[in-house]
């Protein structure tokens, strides 16, 4: 009997990927909270996870839900600030410390495209798994990612040059 790995091994194997995904989807300010809440919820549920489950897809699914919670909470907090002229400028600094252009371009994508890009290209999930997380078909998930990537290439001069080679 081999049984399930210790949760420590799950954190070691997937912690970095889930953190990157949270950062891509949420920006650096809220990513840590989403990561922490996702791994705590995952650890709670871990004994009941089927032994043959795709652990990374399961973790990204939980992180996706936590990211939505964090976004909603941030939106509620942001309501009073929105009335202050110029308050939105601070949000633009979220990309600081990251590789600026691509991070900013990703942040500006519609949520669904951003998520499809992050889950497929960063987490390496197949489109069927991405669709299971986002809802809709695998083809729709593929189109959302393709539309997102096309916009990223238009906004990133480096990528535009590379794609002409």
């Amino acid at each position, binding site marked *: *009997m081999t*049984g399930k790995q210790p949760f*420590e091994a799950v954190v070691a194997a997937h912690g970095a990927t889930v953190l*990157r995904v949270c950062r891509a989807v949420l920006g650096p300010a809220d990513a840590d909270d989403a990561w922490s809440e996702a791994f*705590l919820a995952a650890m709670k549920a871990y004994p009941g996870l089927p032994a043959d489950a795709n652990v990374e897809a399961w973790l990204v699914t939980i992180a996706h839900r936590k990211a939505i919670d964090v976004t909603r909470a941030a939106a509620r907090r942001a309501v009073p600030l929105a009335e202050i002229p110029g308050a939105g400028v601070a949000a633009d600094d979220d990309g600081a410390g990251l590789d600026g252009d691509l991070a900013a371009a*990703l942040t500006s994508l519609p949520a669904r495209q951003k998520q499809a890009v992050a889950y497929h290209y960063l987490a*390496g999930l197949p489109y069927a798994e991405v669709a299971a997380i986002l809802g809709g078909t695998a083809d729709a998930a593929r189109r959302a990612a393709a539309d997102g990537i096309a916009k990223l290439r238009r906004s990133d001069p480096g990528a535009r040059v590379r794609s002409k080679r």
Partner: protein
Amino acid sequence: MNTDELADEMARDLTRTFPATPGELSRLHDQLAAAAERDGILDVAYRTIDSPVGSLLLAATEQGLIRVAYASEGHEAVLQALATRISPRILHAPGRLEAAARELGEYFAGHRRRFDLPLDLRLSAGFRRTVLSHLPEIGYGRTASYASVAQLAGHPKAVRAVGTACATNPLPVVVPCHRVVRSDGRMGGYLGGLDAKRTLLSLEAAA
């Protein structure tokens, strides 16, 4: 460039753009361990310590110390066995093992003669558990034969079973199976290897 190469390049660019450094992950891991402890879902916490008998793995449930393991047992294998037998909700979380690590440190320095730690004896059952519960009666710096331990445990003829109980002791050093030796004066076996047994017995003889 074909589509696959472009996809790989995009994956690389995104990975570079959204870093996750070992320092950040280590901080998040420690916060997770603290939150799991607070929420009562850290079923097994573990850490390792350096000692004169090599690296020792210490693992504890909420009830107490459940496992001490020598490097020769394979710490990864021991953690996997704990995941299967106790719970897979296991994290490296030194906080819960603070008292155990301190007392073992004092023991190896020759400053402690008995351990005062809550123990979780779930990994040992039946007669083996009875044997283990009698081992602390063999005082520090002394030895007892397998036969006399069988007597202590109330089954004078179960000498071989005492040997098995010692060989499968989940809490070596803390539950002193190293003090059990053969009646002809030779050391007998030891789950941590004979060198470890010799080291512990001479440490106790010298202190």
